[in-house]
């Protein structure tokens, strides 16, 4: 009970039990209580997870590995149920359960009266279970299992409103596109298994690879395949297209799964596998480039969207790109620092993005399901609490100095600038990426406050659907908002910049230290770089100012003619979806139909072959003319031929 593994197992088990209880409740008259198990499980889980944080911080060894219980084993392939608790996973566990608890409370209000109420909470519980399993898993295939588990829950929750065609399409798209990445992930795992001494346990695999460095090319391939999985799950370029569509799900789902937790699984995976990536500079710079491209591309796409949730979705892609940027510097600078930067941004992002989504959900709740910013505006008066919390989240997201986002983004800038001055062969690339990161910061501030002004400022406009419930949400929804806004405001400042609590905690993770050893990089002093912070601040304020100048009267949006093409390009999502549709989906479908037609042809071929005996028979049929003499004659002649053959050929 008191040892960390036991604790972690309890945390893991609670949401599963919650799901089972909710299943039992769903058939009874108590179905409206289906939210309670999840809230209790997450709340209890969060308390235990914080205990666990303390235990891990205090323990003499920073990693605890559970016993192996074989899942399946044959030949070299041995997969076991095994979990590990180290600072990295403990931190993720605490973050997931804590955020999930508040989102669960929020959803009890948000989903109230929905006919699929128990279903929603069953799936949410299963999601929390899978997410906890994902962060705890110490075996690659077990990790894949939970990885797919969160994907499944995401699929079912995006398709929660199943009779809505757009939701159904979005659900399938989300699952399939992440599954492209997962296919790569699985192949990468098997490659690692081959070269890593037939291990699938993470710790054993890292140790083996650290001791016997394999062929660089193969390792890079394997790492890039792992990264494929991360790209799919974390919605990075070029697989980001599913995330904006996934906003078809209920808003708490977007907040929990598509902002705070599941989409960060890719970041977590790379952080977890830091020792592998530390060995391949090529893979690192690829990660950094993908992260950079996603960050600026999604930032650009966010500025032209009219759907509030889509703005936030693109912003999530963009912020995840930041995290990958930080991870991309993993071997160039001290991996511990790179991972800390990424994970710190992950933490603050979880808070402010969950907050923003929940606030958007609160707006949506009040507007009767309408989320198009062109149809409402000036909600500041009607929804004061939501307004303030949204502002807190927006400020943190835009990285206004001293708020959470500022500190975490600053760490990423610093990591990039360190990398551009390091001994890495790709310093020029890192330099360009630093510029990209700065530009993205400007875009972030702009689109965030565009959304904020359009929603809350200016004259009040309400859609018809809002009806008479266009008022502030009930307490069960606003309290989580307030708690999360506290996090968005102060968490960043509280845990890292002044006391290095966060980095000091993560630093002890054995796998990160192993990565540091492998990368041969010296520890860098964690200092606050005034130049970088200054540039960042100026850009953020510029973006904010521009948004203020353009949107302070609120909606509807009036664009200066110079910017109109830019916004149009952004609104049309740069036609990426259409290009994918035309270049991949259509040809694949065409190929499928071609194959089906060809199959008919193959069948025809088989029929042709089967027709040969019939044709032969047709040809020989007249022989059967019913005349006994003819038969006798042919028999006699045949016998004569046969006998002469025997006599003159064989007998000789």
């Amino acid at each position, binding site marked *: 009970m008191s040892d960390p593994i036991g604790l972690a197992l309890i945390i893991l088990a609670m949401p599963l039990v919650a799901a089972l209880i909710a299943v039992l409740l769903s058939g009874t008259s108590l179905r409206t209580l289906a939210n309670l198990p999840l809230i209790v499980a997450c709340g209890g889980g969060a308390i235990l997870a914080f205990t666990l944080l303390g235990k891990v911080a205090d323990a003499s060894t920073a990693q605890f590995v559970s*016993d*192996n*219980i*074989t*899942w*399946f*084993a*044959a*030949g*070299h*392939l*041995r*997969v*076991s149920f095994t979990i590990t608790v180290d600072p990295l996973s403990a931190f993720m566990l605490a973050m997931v359960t804590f955020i999930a608890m508040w989102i669960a409370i929020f959803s009890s209000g948000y989903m109230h009266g929905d006919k699929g109420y128990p279903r929603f909470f069953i799936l949410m519980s299963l999601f929390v279970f899978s997410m906890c399993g994902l962060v705890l898993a110490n075996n690659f*295939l077990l990790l*894949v*299992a*939970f990885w*797919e*588990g969160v994907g*499944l829950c995401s699929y*079912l929750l995006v*398709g929660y409103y*199943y*009779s809505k*065609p757009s*939701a*159904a*399409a979005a*659900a*399938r798209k989300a*699952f*399939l596109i992440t*599954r*492209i990445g997962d*296919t790569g992930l*699985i*192949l990468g795992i*098997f*490659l690692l*298994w*081959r070269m890593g*001494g*037939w291990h699938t*346990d993470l710790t*054993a695999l890292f140790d*083996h690879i650290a001791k016997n460095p394999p062929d660089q090319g193969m390792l890079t391939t394997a790492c890039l395949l792992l990264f494929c999985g991360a790209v799919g799950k974390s919605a990075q370029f070029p697989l980001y297209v599913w995330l904006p569509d996934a906003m078809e799900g209920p808003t708490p789902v977007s907040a929990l799964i598509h902002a705070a937790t599941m989409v960060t699984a890719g970041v977590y995976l790379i952080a977890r596998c830091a020792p592998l990536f530390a060995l391949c500079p090529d893979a690192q710079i690829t990660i950094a480039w993908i992260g950079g491209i996603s960050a600026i591309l999604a930032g650009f796409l966010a500025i032209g969207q009219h759907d509030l949730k889509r703005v936030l979705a693109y912003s999530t892609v963009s912020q995840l790109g930041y995290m990958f940027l930080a991870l991309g510097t993993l071997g160039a600078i001290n991996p511990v620092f790179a991972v800390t930067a990424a994970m710190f941004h992950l933490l603050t992002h979880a808070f402010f993005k969950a907050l923003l989504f929940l606030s958007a959900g609160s707006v949506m709740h009040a507007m009767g399901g309408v989320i198009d910013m062109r149809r409402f505006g000036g909600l500041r008066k009607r929804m004061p609490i939501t307004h303030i919390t949204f502002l807190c989240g927006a400020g943190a997201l835009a990285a206004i100095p001293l708020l959470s986002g500022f500190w975490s983004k600053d760490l990423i800038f610093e990591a990039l600038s360190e990398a551009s001055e390091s001994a890495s062969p790709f310093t020029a690339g890192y330099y360009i990426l630093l510029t990209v990161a700065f530009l993205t910061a400007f875009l972030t501030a702009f689109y965030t406050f565009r959304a904020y002004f359009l929603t809350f400022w200016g004259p009040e406009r309400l859609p018809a659907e809002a009806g008479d419930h266009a008022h502030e949400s009930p307490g069960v929804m606003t309290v989580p908002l307030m708690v999360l806004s506290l996090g968005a405001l102060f968490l960043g400042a509280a845990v890292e910049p002044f006391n290095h609590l966060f980095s000091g905690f993560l630093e002890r993770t054995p796998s990160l230290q192993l990565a540091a050893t492998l990368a041969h990089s010296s520890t860098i002093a964690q200092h606050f770089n005034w130049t970088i912070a200054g540039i960042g601040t100026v850009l953020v304020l510029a973006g904010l100012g521009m948004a203020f100048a353009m949107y302070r009267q609120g909606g509807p949006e009036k664009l200066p003619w110079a910017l109109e093409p830019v916004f149009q390009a952004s609104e049309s999502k740069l036609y990426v979806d259409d290009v994918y549709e035309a270049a991949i989906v259509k040809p*694949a*479908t065409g*190929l*499928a*139909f*071609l*194959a*089906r037609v060809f*199959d008919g042809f*193959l*069948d025809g071929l*088989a029929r042709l072959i*089967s027709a040969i005996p019939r044709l032969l028979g047709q040809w020989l049929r007249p022989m059967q003319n019913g005349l006994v003499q003819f038969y006798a004659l042919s028999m006699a002649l045949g016998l004569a031929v046969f006998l002469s053959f025997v006599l003159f050929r064989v007998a000789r």
Partner: protein
Amino acid sequence: MIVFTRVLLLLVLILPLASAAIFPFFGRPARRLAIWVAFLHLLITSAVVVLALPMLNDRIEDSGFSKLEAAKFRPNFVPGDVSGSDGASNRTTWTVLSLAPTPMRPGDAGPNIQFFIGVDGLNLWLIALSSFMMLPAILVSWESIREKPGKFYALMFLMQGGAIGAFLSFDVILFYVFFELTLIPTFFLIGGWGTGSGRRDAARKFFLYTLAGSLLTLLGIIGVVLTNPNDEGMITFSLPDLMGNVQRNLYFAGKAAFAGQPAALIALQNTQFWLFLALMAGFLVKVPIWPFHTWLPAAYSEAPTGVTILLSALLAKLGTFGILRLVLPLTPDAAIMYGLPVIGSLAAFGIVYAALCAYAEKDLKLMIAYSSVSHLGFLVLALFAFNVEGISGAVLHMVNHGLTTGALFAMSGFLLDRYKTTQMSQYGGLMGRFPNFAVLAFILCLASIGLPGLNNFVSEMLMLGGVVDARNPRIDRLGLAVIAAIGIFLGAWYILTMLQRMFFNPLKEPLTTGTAPADISGREFAIFGSLAGLCLVLGLFPQPVLDSARWDLNLLNVIGNGARARVSGIEEKEPEKEIVPMTIPAPPGMKAGPGGGPPGGGKGGKGGGPPVGGKGGSPKLGD
């Protein structure tokens, strides 16, 4: 006790055949009787499984494969065992037909075609599957078969009996007889009770296609028997003895080849090539492998649902099981040389091809039929990787695929019972229409696309590992692995598209007469619930299946490694350095056998290679 087990095993085979004999005399009550018989059969089979498991798990691995005589299958519970009650001889005295020139004493080894059945790790779970799948097959036919039910169930039992017989056989001719026996009931079931207008054509196509293939297989079997006599020139039809002969011949030829006289080995390998082709012909059609699959969509879609379940769950397994039981042990060198490059390429192409066809298909039953082709291609690919991971994955996947594909067909039967059509375009929003059914259908569909925690994931991972680890010469194993992985992805593609069209979206259903169709009934819940439950159990605890087959898998692996060494011309070498014995503590889930040592090093590791590569392969066989 041991006699009791033999009687039980005999009952497993006799009960369906006897039912087939008496069922035609029943009319309407046949279905109720059928379900009781199936239950009884399941009970008996469970008893066999329970009794066999400790026996199979405790087999001592060290005893194996270091002698010529030992590199062969060892069936247990053999009825008519010569040694009476202790059951150690693993051979039978029940000769059906003796080809010996002079009368022999009973029990002597000789050119006898025998009634030689038994269980080992490879067929135990397939028998369990055959027994279990009869229940959904009967329950699905419950309402839909109203015409001559007695004859229908009789033929179903005959089909089951044939499949079980083929799984149990350890005599090559007996295997062939049962293999062919399944054709007859299937032909009449498809032709007589089929649902579509093309049923007669489908039945005829199925029959002729499979017969054409399996006649070549018979030729191959006879060829193997004739070309592999023992030391005294005496032929044998007993599979274990035949394996011993094959191994001995190859061993001496291989030894000569390493010493610089390859003529004998080359001659043997050339013979093996032709025998391999002949043996494979029937199995290629039965599995089926592209491009010999065209009988399958027609047969699966025209057959009544219950028959389709048995077809996909049992008969398709006969093909893969034949490869496992006959092709790999009897023509190992050819399986290494041509298995992956030729058959594997066809299978890999078929995986993608059938998946694409499945996507383009508009009929639910046909879609599942094509998905079955795709999955089985993967299975054959893994079989020919010829290593422990691949084969164990394949053995497990045979069971898993039987469950999930059978379940998917049962799903189509659910809709067919209500709406008389399986055109996917006619359905939509079923999640709201049949919420309870939808939950189970989702579980089964997700099992089919290999979602972790459900059964197919485990076997697919093992098979993928087998392909990645395949060290067969002349193949690009990573290329094959990539294709297999693409196949897994495509599987998700068409299944999810089907789910989106049929279960999501606004409600759309074909017109029905009378009352609105009800959600899942108790009978149907029994079908889908038990299938989904088994999928979950096998997904989380697959190890008992693998454990019980470990001995046999290692045996096949030893044969494979010997063949690999002969083919690549490398004499067996020291254990590869890259393989480290696993040092993790014995997991409680795995029973440490008397093989000794840590389970990892002693068992898992052994299967994979080091001790095998070092001493288990053929050079040691002559000691």
